[in-house]
């Protein structure tokens, strides 16, 4: 037999087909499904995220699992601590809303945060009344609790989605036909942040500021330098590391937010290629932070913007919700820091509100012209 006759012909396609004839063992398939059923419930309990879906899964698991009922009984042994912890949260739930408050005039421009109201909102807790004392105790308890949390949790705390009572069933006046609002946009409550009352960025023209923009590359003219956007999947992780999809598109920083997912962006974050990459905040000085923001896509996006210390403990000077819509608008808010800060930065958290009809959809959030300037008038 000659050598060519002995040669057997084969091809990668044939080898591929031979491999695919062999399925995974049925026992393995069964074992995997059984283990995943347990793991799904356990994962939902371990990290109940702010999106509604894992929360509901956690609640379902609580109902189903006797072990968690026992855990609930253990927690019930501390009724005083629990009531002290829950009471302030109830009272603070409607603090941040995504839609204009009824009392707030539409198109009020930059006057949305009245000087008096702002000063009251940013006043340190001088507990004179019983209610204020309760809130002060709650803040102290929250501060004590957050001291043991991880750095990422301290950066933004774990946002809990709550419905905004004033917005349920009320579509925003500037609702566009393409924007789905089957479910109302929800408010973000960020427990542990002191200056969070009256924090709705309003839209309108900006008053003349003093001095330059304190945020280098706030207009993204130099690409994404100094900026970073990351996925925030795990609120207890030391630091969000997985980059979210983001880029500068037509001069704006755009990032994709999937249904139910969180992204966190910051300036400066990682990148220190430009200078200055920090700014100082002076107590008693009035500042104004502004940005242009809009979304593209079927899902409503909850956006919260923050100015604060750029390192641990990430103390916030201002935390404000941005009622972002599909129309690009300029939002701004004036604030007065309650403490000096020589190393401040800005950041934002965005969450696409999960919709049962489009559980896998996403929207694109774009921000531009991020600006922080001093203002002449004192609060």
């Amino acid at each position, binding site marked *: 037999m000659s050598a060519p006759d002995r040669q057997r012909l084969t091809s*990668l396609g044939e080898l591929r087909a*031979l491999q695919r004839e062999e*399925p995974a063992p*049925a026992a393995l398939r069964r074992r995997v499904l059984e283990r995943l059923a347990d793991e799904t419930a356990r994962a939902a309990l371990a990290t109940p995220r702010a999106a509604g879906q894992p929360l509901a899964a956690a609640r379902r698991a609580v109902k189903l699992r006797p072990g968690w009922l026992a855990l609930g009984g253990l927690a019930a042994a501390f009724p005083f601590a629990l009531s002290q912890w829950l009471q302030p949260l109830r009272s603070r739930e409607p603090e941040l809303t995504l839609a204009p408050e009824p009392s707030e005039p539409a198109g009020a421009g930059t006057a949305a945060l009245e000087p008096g109201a702002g000063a009251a909102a940013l006043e340190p807790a001088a507990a004179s009344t019983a209610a204020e004392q309760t809130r002060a105790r709650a803040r102290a308890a929250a501060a004590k609790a957050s001291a043991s949390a991880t750095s990422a949790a301290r950066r933004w705390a774990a946002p809990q989605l709550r419905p905004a009572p004033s917005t349920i069933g009320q579509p925003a006046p500037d609702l566009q036909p393409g924007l789905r609002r089957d479910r109302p946009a929800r408010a973000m409550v960020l427990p542990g942040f002191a200056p969070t009352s009256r924090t709705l960025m309003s839209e309108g023209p900006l008053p003349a500021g003093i001095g330059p923009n304190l945020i280098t590359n706030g207009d993204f003219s130099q690409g994404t330098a100094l900026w970073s956007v990351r996925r925030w999947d795990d609120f207890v992780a030391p630091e969000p590391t997985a980059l979210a999809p983001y880029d500068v598109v037509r001069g704006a920083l755009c990032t994709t937010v999937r249904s139910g997912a969180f992204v966190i962006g910051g300036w400066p974050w990682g990148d220190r290629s430009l200078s200055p990459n920090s700014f100082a905040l002076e107590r008693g000085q009035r500042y104004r932070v502004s940005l242009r923001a809009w979304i593209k896509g079927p899902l409503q996006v909850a956006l919260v913007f923050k100015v604060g210390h750029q390192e641990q403990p990430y103390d916030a000077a201002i935390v404000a919700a941005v009622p972002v819509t599909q129309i690009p608008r300029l939002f701004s808010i004036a604030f007065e820091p309650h403490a000096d800060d020589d190393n401040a930065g800005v950041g934002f958290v965005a969450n696409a509100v999960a919709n049962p009809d489009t559980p896998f959809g996403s929207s694109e959030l774009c921000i531009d012209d991020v600006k922080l300037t001093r203002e002449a008038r004192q609060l």
Partner: protein
Amino acid sequence: MLLSTLSLLRCALFPVAGESSSELPDVSERVERIVRQHLDAVWRTARNLGVTDRDADDVVQEVMLVVVRRLDDIDVGRERAFVLGATARVAANWRRGRRRRPEELTDSIDSVSGVYEVPPGRAVFWSPEQAFERAEKLALLAEALDQMPPELRVAFTLFELEQLTGRETAEQLGVAPSVVFSRVRRAWAIFRRCCADADVALPQAGQLAEPAEEHEP
């Protein structure tokens, strides 16, 4: 622990208005669908990446746990790429762990017995000649894969055997597409050399195998 307990209780005590379990997508349903559709590919890929039969079970389960934990990160329609990429990463971890512990005798026994094992539950039975020929060809592929360095092996497995696109393979491996093509090209050279050593000829285009399948970069 106390914080998480309190958070959990707060979630349970203050359900979000307008939200009920019935209107939310069932996470387990999607996981189950992914398992049913891609478990074979995961198992096959794990073995192609050198995981022994004895440990393939653990690796597959580990991959599926990754799927559960990262379910929110998996884009719809790209589950296969994600799952196979996760398999590559878990298999790499398995390889690293294996270096740290002494090789067990049963590993080699498994690998020998697996070659000639007739898949259970098959409706079609081969003749002894067919079974031998099939086992021989699969052994040839296994031999070629064993001779490839890990980075070439994973690129070849994902791109050629599992037929992910170059872009998908690159995304899962965290490298540029050009790097994937380069690795696959080098892996092909090893595969050809193995075929030549075993006196097995690869067909030219149009002979035996359809050219589209042999999408050598």
